[in-house]
């Protein structure tokens, strides 16, 4: 019965909500915009990893899909951060 109202991976869900609130708060914080923006993108990448590892169940042995997703999020994060910093140079 407990599992009917409380699905597994609750800690992951709470973490996802927590870091989402953090990134939302960072946007209007007094932090330097470049620092806040970089943190926000890194937090998004962290959240995406949590989703594909825990919700989509891409464990280390689920290949090549796990590798594809790791490369994808790595490239997307790199491109966005490089583009952001290039634009603000």
């Amino acid at each position: 019965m407990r599992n009917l109202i409380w699905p597994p991976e609750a800690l992951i869900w709470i973490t996802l909500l927590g870091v989402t609130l953090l990134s939302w708060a960072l946007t209007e914080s007094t932090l330097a915009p470049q620092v806040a923006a970089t943190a926000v993108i890194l937090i998004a990448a962290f959240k995406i990893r949590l989703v594909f590892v825990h919700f989509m169940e891409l464990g280390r042995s689920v290949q090549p899909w796990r590798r594809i997703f790791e490369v994808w999020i790595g490239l997307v994060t790199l491109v966005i951060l490089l583009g952001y910093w290039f634009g603000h140079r």
Partner: protein
Amino acid sequence: MAQGLSLVSQRPAAKATRTEPAGDGGVWVFITADICMFGLFFTIFTWDRSHNISLFEQSRRLLDPNIGLLNTIFLLTSSWFMVGAVHAARSGRRRALLAFLSLAMLAGSGFAVSKIIEYSHKLQAGISMLTNSFFMYYFIFTGIHYLHFLIGMVVLGILWSMGRRSNLPSEPRYLLWVESGACYWHMVDLLWLMLFPLLYLLRQ
């Protein structure tokens, strides 16, 4: 709780030991192609933004990050309920499966409504995809994402409807559909997790 609907699968191994992904392999090919397409969208947006920073920042300020936050909470919660649905299906708990699918659709409906409200606010303010390049990206990217979302809601509805039947045509096959639908649904969530900061939170 278990009602004799033996959905218990022979196939899924424990998360740590499995070597095959949950769901159908074809769905993973589709998901991979889709995330690559969105990866291209993010790259184009980032490139254009780096050349029009003032315009993109002024336009971004016209978006409401509170609605973006609400959208994210709805999708994350819906995704989490879908995790519950997969686990319920694997353990043959049909009532729990239907409850989690219903909750996933309920949370998804929150996203649907808040996104429609957001779109209508923008249109009422005279903002459309023709306003400038930022809003062109905003409407196209979130519109394509919304289309993915609607397809996902239909899939959840079909899974719920199938789950209600007492005699499923092939039980392991139904579990495969639940897992595949869940992976697609998580992809919809995952893509939004990057769209949200890129459009709403990346300040100058």
